């Protein structure tokens, strides 16, 4: 079934499916129900990072130096850890300034410099060409290998080079048509291509599934799991060295580190990554999920790389099969036609995804930052007077797409055969890494200037071109090879691969070191030396302090001049079409509670700035600047004026920060005062309660004493028995009164700190024994079983002996009061642990309601008898007991479950422990 025609048909069907997905997503977006508003789609679209290079090339690299392919994915993981800081800032800046591309970003940061934007575009296009050619090569090679099925023949052995290269040309043209259909159907002011993003996310799924399928097949189908693959590889003397791969390679660790750094830059500054991560981002919050989902995707797609590489080396030991093709040739060798086809489709989706996004990103840059600024300056074209320029913009972009793909094809034809896939890709990585100083420096360092960025980029690019691009051409025979061997004009020191005699390094390594020294050196050096213009000052502040300047109006403060509303409207209509211009103006008006066009807008700084930002969304910041300047009369602000405005702004910020702080302090003070007031009120209420409770408690016995005395006084002929009984009650009530008064006095002494404490070593065992002896008769009367679990000997505590007896008496008499009437039982336990003595008094009474368990320790709280509702005692005993225990550094609490009795416990520190703590 693997005929050429069938494969071509299936490939077209796949592309058709992609287009259908994109079309559907675009329709949904137009209907206001976007499908891509999901962090998962965002994360998957970021996986456009994994191209045909990942799909085929990782295995190729792994087959030659083991883990050497991994930094290309670990680097991005490390960079993504910084996304929270770096990418969030870039996202915010881009949204506020309507950034349309990487070049636009750099140009806008350095004073909306058209020159800088053009330079970035040129570097990006030239730098990315090898990468695009890599995709073309991968697709056409995999096609030709698949067609040979069931034979496995490398394309280079096929001989007919022109025919294969024609395939690459076809691939390039088909992809160009496809990209044009995807990316330039209409002009979006925000440069969002929702359909494309949806299709890319789908492609990411396809390539992941295809790769996992072939990986699982090789690992578990051909071999017996990971262990088996590695064990068999280790048995081969040739492959054994690859088990500790970093030792064998010269400069192993250094290569590894540089590759990691290079990939960290690539994940941020490849035009397609910038496109999907920044330009196509619809919601900043999607970043949260992407921060771990995208690295997880990269981990998943790499798990099977090593097993496939070793599987391929074992299967084709003679080296006749290029390791870059193992992913495809292994299933073919095992006669798995369908799997091989799936792999081809996976590779196709990896390649097409990259090409589509990359060329859209590059064509936007070429249009907005290279062609438009030039066209707009050519007065002969009279572009300013053309009524509608949207068609022109789209035309330029379409032309750019075709041109870029043709250039990619050209590079493939010139240099594509000389290198493995990975090496081709790394050349592009090294090119985009040149953007790192200008961009990272630009968002964190206000001192970076346009002149600095220009010199840094030019210096870095020249070194890159000389040390990487030229050698690639030389190896393919387009530049004399003597340049590599002896240097230009025979000057050995300038040999492109060993600049200034720096030898022994990997080619990429070597180029990175020199280009970064040149780039960073020039950027920082020139920035410090040349002072910036007013525009640069303003933009630097807007970018670096993006989180301080709120809203899009931030730039309006810096504009002064005169303009007219119709001019501004016409300008917008020419580039966006009149419908988009209408809605933009209406939006601006309604944000100010005005109705446009019925009410007149003021052509003030805000409106001018608004129009410029809208325009920037379509044609880039630098072009927008030129266009707006052409319809308004503006006064140029001097550097000092800009600085004044910035200072003013920052003073206002500082001032408002201070105000905020003051008001926070005030609020805190108010809260404290309110709390203190609440506490006072509460205390007052408690005092009132106390007084009224005490008087109430005093009145009860007094009333009964008075009642019985009156009886005895009024009726002299009460018989002796009655009289004795009444006198007995009177005595008892008097005792109760005395006890109550004593307790109140006691309490007030303790609470006011005037109580006299006689501190001495106290043996708690003795205290308990004495208490039980004193109450022995009571137990017998009430028929209560008492169990005392006392150890032989316990450490002494520092306490007042009488007070401790008072506490024990209180707890035990409470237990007696509440224990079961018929089968009363009380347990008293004493124990010692970690320098603490603990006493538990347990009864088998009705238990205490959880709600009451803290309350019972407060003054006058009486738990009524559950049967009669009549309270026992004064309600002061437990409160006083707790005060006593706490005075000696202990704690008292109760544990109880309703119906299962209660257990009152307290702890006291032993003398030794208390002394140790004091010391």
């Amino acid at each position, binding site marked *: 079934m693997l005929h050429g025609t069938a494969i071509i048909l299936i490939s077209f069907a796949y592309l058709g499916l992609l287009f259908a997905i994109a079309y559907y997503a675009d329709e949904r977006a137009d209907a206001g129900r976007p499908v891509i508003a999901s962090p998962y789609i965002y994360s998957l679209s970021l996986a456009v990072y994994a191209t045909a290079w990942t799909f085929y090339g990782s295995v190729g690299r792994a087959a030659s130096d*083991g*883990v050497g392919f*991994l*930094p290309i994915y*670990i680097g991005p*993981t*490390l*960079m*993504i*850890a*910084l*996304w*929270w*800081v770096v990418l969030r800032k870039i996202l915010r800046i881009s949204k506020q300034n309507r950034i349309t591309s990487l070049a636009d970003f750099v140009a806008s940061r350095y004073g909306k410099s058209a020159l800088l934007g053009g330079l970035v575009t040129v570097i990006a296009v030239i730098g990315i060409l090898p990468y695009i050619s890599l995709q073309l090569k991968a697709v056409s090679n995999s096609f030709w290998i698949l067609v040979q099925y069931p034979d496995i023949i490398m394309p280079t052995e096929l001989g007919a080079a022109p025919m294969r290269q024609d395939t690459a040309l076809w691939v390039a043209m088909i992809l160009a048509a496809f990209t044009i259909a995807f990316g330039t159907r209409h002009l979006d002011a925000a440069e969002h291509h929702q359909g494309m993003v949806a299709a890319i996310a789908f492609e990411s799924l396809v390539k992941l599934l295809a790769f996992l399928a072939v990986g699982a097949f090789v690992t578990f189908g051909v071999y017996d*799991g*990971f*262990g*088996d693959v*590695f*064990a068999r590889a*280790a048995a081969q003397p040739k492959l054994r060295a690859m*088990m*500790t*791969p*970093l*030792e064998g390679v010269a400069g192993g*660790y250094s290569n*590894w*580190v540089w590759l*990691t750094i290079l990939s960290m830059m690539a994940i941020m500054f490849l035009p397609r990554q910038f496109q999907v991560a920044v330009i196509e981002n619809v919601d900043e919050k999607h970043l*949260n*999920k992407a*921060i*771990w989902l995208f*690295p*997880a995707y990269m*981990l998943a797609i790499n*798990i099977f790389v*090593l097993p496939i590489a070793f599987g391929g080396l074992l299967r084709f030991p003679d080296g006749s099969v290029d390791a870059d093709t193992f992913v495809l040739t292994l299933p073919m060798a095992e006669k798995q036609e369908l799997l091989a086809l799936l792999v081809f489709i996976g590779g196709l989706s990896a390649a097409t995804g990259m090409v589509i996004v990359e060329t859209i990103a590059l064509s936007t840059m070429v249009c907005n930052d290279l062609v438009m600024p030039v066209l707009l300056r050519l007065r002969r074209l009279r572009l300013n007077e053309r009524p509608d320029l949207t068609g022109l913009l789209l035309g330029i972009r379409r032309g750019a797409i075709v041109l870029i793909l043709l250039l990619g094809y050209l590079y493939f034809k010139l240099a594509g055969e000389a290198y493995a896939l990975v090496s081709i890709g790394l050349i592009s990585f090294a090119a985009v890494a040149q953007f790192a100083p200008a961009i990272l420096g630009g968002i964190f360092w206000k001192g970076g200037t346009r002149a600095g960025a220009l010199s840094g980029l030019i210096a870095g690019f020249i070194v890159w071109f000389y040390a990487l691009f030229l050698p690639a051409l030389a190896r393919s025979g387009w530049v004399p090879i003597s340049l590599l061997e002896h240097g230009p004009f025979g000057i050995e020191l300038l040999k492109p691969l060993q600049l200034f005699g720096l030898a022994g390094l990997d080619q990429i390594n070597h180029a990175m070191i020199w280009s970064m020294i040149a780039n960073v050196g020039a950027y920082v050096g020139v920035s410090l030396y040349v002072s910036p213009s007013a525009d640069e000052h303003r933009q630097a502040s807007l970018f670096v302090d993006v*989180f301080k300047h709120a809203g899009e109006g931030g730039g309006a403060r810096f504009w002064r001049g005169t303009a007219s509303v119709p001019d501004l409207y016409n300008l917008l209509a020419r580039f966006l079409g009149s419908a988009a211009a209408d809605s933009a103006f209406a939006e601006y008006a309604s944000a100010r509670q005005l109705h446009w066009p019925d009410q007149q807008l003021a052509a003030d700084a805000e409106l001018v700035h608004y129009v410029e930002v809208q325009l920037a969304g379509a044609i880039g910041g630098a072009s927008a600047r030129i266009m707006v300047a052409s319809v308004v009369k503006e006064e140029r602000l001097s550097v000092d004026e800009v600085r004044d405005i910035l200072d003013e702004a920052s003073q206002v910020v500082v001032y408002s920060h201070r105000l905020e702080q003051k008001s926070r302090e005030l609020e805190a003070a108010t809260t404290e005062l309110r709390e203190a007031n609440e506490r006072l009120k509460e205390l007052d209420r408690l005092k009132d309660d106390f007084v009224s409770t005490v008087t109430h408690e005093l009145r009860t016995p007094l009333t009964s004493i008075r009642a019985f005395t009156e009886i005895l006084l009024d009726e002299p002929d009460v018989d002796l028995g009655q009289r004795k009984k009444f006198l007995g009650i009177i005595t008892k009530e008097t005792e109760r009164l005395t006890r109550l008064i004593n307790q109140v006095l006691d309490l007030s002494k303790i609470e006011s700190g005037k109580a006299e404490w006689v501190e001495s070593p106290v043996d708690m065992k003795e205290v308990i024994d004495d208490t039980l002896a004193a109450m022995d008769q009571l137990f017998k009367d009430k028929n209560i079983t008492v169990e005392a679990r006392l150890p032989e000997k316990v450490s002494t505590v520092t306490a007042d002996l009488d007070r401790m007896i008072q506490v024990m008496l209180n707890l035990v008499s409470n237990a007696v009061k509440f224990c079961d009437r018929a089968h009363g039982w009380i347990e008293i336990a004493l124990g010692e642990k970690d320098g603490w003595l603990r006493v538990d008094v347990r009864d088998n009474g009705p238990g205490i309601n959880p709600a009451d368990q803290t309350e019972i320790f407060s003054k006058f709280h009486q738990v009524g008898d559950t049967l009669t509702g009549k309270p026992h005692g004064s309600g002061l005993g437990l409160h006083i007991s707790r005060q006593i225990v706490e005075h000696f550094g202990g704690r008292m609490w109760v544990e109880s479950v309703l119906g299962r009795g209660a257990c009152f416990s307290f702890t006291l520190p032993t003398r030794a422990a208390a002394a140790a703590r004091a010391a």
Partner: protein
Amino acid sequence: MSDFESKGQRFVALCMLGMLMFNFPILALFNVAGTLFGVPVLYAYIFIAWGALIALMAYLTESGG
């Protein structure tokens, strides 16, 4: 804002941890002969450490703030 800042600092620390884990000399400790679960030690280490780093990043982004 301070929540954002402290989270940012944690992410920077995580990146540094990653740089440490995937660099000389920590990497050299695992660049030895032998296998772990049948996989050469270096390969096993890289994938396990990588997975752990991603798990930490997931924990950090998904946890509050």
